[in-house]
């Protein structure tokens, strides 16, 4: 089924539109998405860097304070012995930065001065003096903001020794400023970190260590205020993987098994998104990263982008991790994408409707033209009528079409005239049935019917019903697909037989495969009659020739027949005489009777052989034993042969049945044998022999008659009438033989053999179709 032009246009327009929009929308979406994500990552790096800077800034005063105190201590600006001054120095340091939780100094002897924030505007000093008794060794002083002593007391139970603390040991061992790992301050239960700096004396020995505690809870609140995307967050890990800063500071303190407090490891942090953001990057060495890692991850069906960024500072081995949901950055364009897609579909639908309308408008003139073409070809509209308004291309097509149509009409008219007035018979035959679709005057006249009487009847009905062969052949021809020609006998209206020659060509009738045959028909009755006459003449000549041959053979045959008859009369006489006059020889009579019997059969054989030649020629092929025929033929010429002392040898061989008209073949064989006898008789040759042999070749039996005669001159055209070597012959024998053999589907030829001449002929074997 052909599709309508309108539908194709509409669908194509809509489809193309949809495709174009989809390409633009998606391409723009993906580009934007990539750009935005790229931007998000950059932003995260900026935020990370910002956090690192902030942390540095946040922590650096502690270090400066420690180092300043150390400088003062080591430069003897503040003598260690003057604890009041040392406390004042530490007090001032503590007040210089709100994030400081405490400042202190411990020395090699175990003395310790410690100032820390107690409550708001209240400070607490702890002084350990190893030189006094245990009862007063540890003294606590509460002071106001202005360093006034509010109260003081001893704690005899306190056994604090600064030299055993990690900050002291580490700074002493390192002999330089150090940061301790973050830890939870015992007193405030806040996360913090200590900056410790050793005081080295002139003797290059560590005298003591200055420490400044700084609470890093502030870092967590800083992180909580930090904007990472809309819903993102950041947290900080220590080198061992402990989370030391997190927007939710409550998550940072966990109880250890021994009742102490510690930071949670990232692996155990009660924040699944944070855990997912860091992933499984914690190794046995803690957090060991080469550089920053930009990554993304999925948590509970939501897509996140993440940044893991080491601080890159020697003394602060921390790592900040930032993450934010993707949608914080590209949520809007995702929404936008859905909207755009909907818009695209709507536009495509509108375009399709528009296309349909447009196509209809374009198509209308084409349709009008198509209708007109159909009407023209049906002859309902004159091609010369004005065209409906249409396109230039269609106008050109119309011109061509009009020309074609008028040309076709002209051709049709010419063909009709040629068909109807042709001097030869012409018919159209339906190939499947043999029905006559159209006949012309000549054909009707030939059969004697009117055209009306013939059209619609089958061609087969013109063939005589008992002529099955012709009927079969015709049916066979029209069911094939090749052009054909054949001759047949049809019956005229008056019942007279008419020989026709029919030549047919197949034509395609219509698209669904029906064919018809256009056939020309010639009356060949006259030619046929002549052919038949010629054939009859041939047969008559053969017949007369055979009769003549019979006449020529008669003398020899009479002799041949008289021989056994004579022997019989003699034997009868002998028997008669014995019975009458020689009773003693009566037993011999039986032998005589046997001989008589044999001789009578010999005579009968001769008669039979004779009958093979005098049998009426019905011209009907029959199956017969060729050897038997050769034996009989030899019989017929034996008298002649004996006359000339010629042996006719029949070579033993297989028995072959051939299919031919027997009497005709007998005539040929006798003719060949007689020729051979004459050839030898006229020569002085001592070898007087004729050899007859039979052999089978494929589908034929081949008979050879070979004589030892002088041979035949090459110049002689054998098998042609009136060519002869004989003084008294007409030269018809071989010519007739050739006609007869060929009529029986065989061939006859001559060749020089070793000794003389050999004639050979073939005949189809029994059961072999000679067609």
């Amino acid at each position, binding site marked *: 089924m052909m599709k309508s032009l309108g539908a194709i246009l509409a669908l194509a327009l809509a489809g193309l539109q949809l495709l174009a929009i989809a390409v633009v929308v998606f391409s723009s979406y993906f580009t934007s998405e990539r750009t935005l994500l790229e931007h998000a990552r950059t932003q995260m790096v900026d935020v990370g860097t910002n956090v690192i800077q902030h942390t540095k800034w946040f922590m650096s005063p502690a270090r400066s304070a420690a180092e300043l105190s150390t400088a003062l201590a080591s430069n003897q600006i503040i003598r260690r012995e003057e604890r009041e001054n040392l406390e004042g120095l530490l007090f001032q340091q503590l007040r210089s930065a709100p994030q400081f939780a405490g400042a202190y100094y411990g020395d090699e002897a175990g003395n310790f001065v410690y100032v820390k924030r107690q409550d708001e505007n209240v400070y607490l000093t702890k002084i350990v003096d190893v030189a006094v008794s245990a009862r007063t060794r540890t003294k606590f002083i509460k002071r106001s903001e202005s360093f006034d002593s509010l109260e003081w007391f001893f704690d005899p139970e306190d056994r604090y020794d600064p030299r055993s603390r990690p900050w002291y040991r580490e700074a002493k061992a390192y002999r330089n400023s150090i940061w301790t790992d973050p830890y939870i301050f015992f007193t405030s239960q806040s996360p913090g970190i200590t900056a410790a700096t050793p005081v080295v004396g002139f003797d290059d020995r560590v005298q003591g260590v200055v420490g400044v505690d700084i609470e890093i809870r502030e870092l967590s609140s800083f992180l909580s205020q930090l904007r990472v995307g809309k819903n993102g967050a950041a947290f900080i890990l220590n080198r061992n993987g402990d989370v030391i800063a997190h927007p939710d500071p409550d998550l940072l303190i966990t109880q250890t098994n021994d009742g102490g407090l510690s930071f949670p490891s990232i692996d155990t942090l009660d924040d699944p998104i944070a855990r997912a953001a860091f992933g499984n990057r914690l190794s046995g060495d803690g957090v060991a990263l080469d550089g920053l890692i930009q990554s993304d991850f999925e948590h509970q069906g939501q897509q996140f982008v993440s940044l893991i960024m080491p601080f890159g500072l020697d003394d602060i081995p921390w790592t900040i991790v930032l993450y934010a949901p993707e949608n914080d950055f590209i949520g809007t364009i995702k929404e936008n994408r859905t909207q755009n897609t909907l818009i695209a579909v709507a536009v495509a639908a509108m375009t399709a409707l528009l296309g349909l309308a447009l196509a209809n408008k374009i198509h209308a003139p084409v349709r009008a033209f198509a209708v007109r073409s159909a009407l023209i070809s049906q002859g309902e509209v004159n091609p010369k009528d004005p065209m409906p308004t249409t396109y230039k291309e269609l106008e050109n097509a119309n011109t061509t079409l009009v020309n074609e149509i008028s040309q076709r009409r002209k051709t049709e008219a010419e063909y009709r005239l040629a068909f109807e007035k042709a001097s030869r018979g012409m018919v159209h035959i339906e190939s499947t049935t043999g029905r006559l679709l159209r006949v012309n005057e000549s054909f009707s006249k030939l059969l004697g019917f009117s055209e009306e009487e013939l059209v619609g009847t089958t061609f087969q009905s013109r063939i005589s019903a008992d002529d099955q062969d012709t009927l079969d052949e015709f049916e066979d021809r029209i069911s094939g697909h090749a052009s054909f020609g054949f001759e047949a006998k049809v019956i005229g209206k008056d019942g007279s037989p008419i020989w026709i020659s029919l030549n047919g060509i197949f034509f395609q009738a219509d698209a669904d495969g029906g064919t018809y045959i256009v056939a020309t028909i010639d009356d060949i009755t006259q030619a046929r009659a002549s052919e038949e006459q010629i054939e009859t003449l041939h047969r008559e000549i053969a017949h007369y020739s055979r009769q003549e041959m019979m006449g020529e053979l008669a003398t020899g045959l009479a*002799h041949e027949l008289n021989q056994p008859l*004579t022997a019989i009369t*003699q034997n009868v006489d002998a028997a008669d*005489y014995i019975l009458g006059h020689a009773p003693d020889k009566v037993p011999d009579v039986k032998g005589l009777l046997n001989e008589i019997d044999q001789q009578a059969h010999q005579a009968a054989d001769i008669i039979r052989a004779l009958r093979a030649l005098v049998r009426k020629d019905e011209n009907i092929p029959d199956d017969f034993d060729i050897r038997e025929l050769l034996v009989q033929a030899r019989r017929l010429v034996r008298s002649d042969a004996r*006359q000339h002392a010629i042996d006719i040898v029949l070579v033993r061989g297989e028995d072959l049945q051939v299919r031919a008209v027997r009497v005709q073949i007998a005539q040929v064989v006798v003719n060949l044998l007689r020729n051979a006898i004459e050839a030898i008789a006229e020569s002085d040759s001592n070898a007087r022999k004729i050899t007859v042999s039979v052999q089978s070749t494929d589908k034929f039996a081949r008979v050879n008659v070979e004589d030892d005669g002088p041979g035949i001159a090459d110049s002689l055209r054998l098998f042609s009438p009136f060519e002869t070597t004989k003084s008294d012959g007409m030269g018809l024998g071989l010519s007739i033989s050739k006609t007869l053999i060929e009529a029986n589907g065989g061939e006859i030829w001559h060749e020089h053999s070793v000794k003389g001449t050999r004639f050979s002929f073939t005949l189809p074997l029994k059961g072999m179709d000679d067609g």
Partner: protein
Amino acid sequence: MDDGQFVFLVDDDADIRGSLARALGLRGYVVRPFASAQDFLENYEQDLSGCLLLDYGMPKMDGLQLQKRLNDMGSPLPVIFITGHGGVPESVEAMKMGAVDFLEKPFKQSVLIERIEAALETDRRRRAVDMQISGIVTRFQSLTDREKEISLLLATRPGQNSSKEIARQLGISPRTVDHHRARILAKMDVATVAELVETSLKAGLVSDHDV
């Protein structure tokens, strides 16, 4: 029949030879069969008496050719042709050459016997005549030259040739002629001149038109 006469049979057909020889043999004929003319010629001796049953159509040398050969040889053997062909021209030719008969195969045995008998009789008689003639010739040879001359004159024109006439022709006396005549008659064993004439004719010494 048993006076030393043979029935010679020449036929190339073994059946014919066998049956004919047997049938004739039973009747007491002494049959000598031959398969071919050559065969016969090799075995035949002229002084054998009898007749020849000769097949007309035979390979190589046919009956007619054999008859001619026998004639050439001066054989007196009477020939009866037996033929399967029976063509008129052949029979005429054969009869011209002195065949006694020409029988067409198959023939009635009685006819054949009759012909054989006739031929044998002819042969017998001819042989008797031959004997007579050879006697006459022998006697004639015993005459002197003058006697031969006179006897021929006598035999040629017995009526007109008187002693006187002969004497005048020869230039001798009539008495001498008479004398010679008596001697001739005595030597030739005849009684009269008429008998001399007959004998001379019989022996072929003179011919009819001479008389």
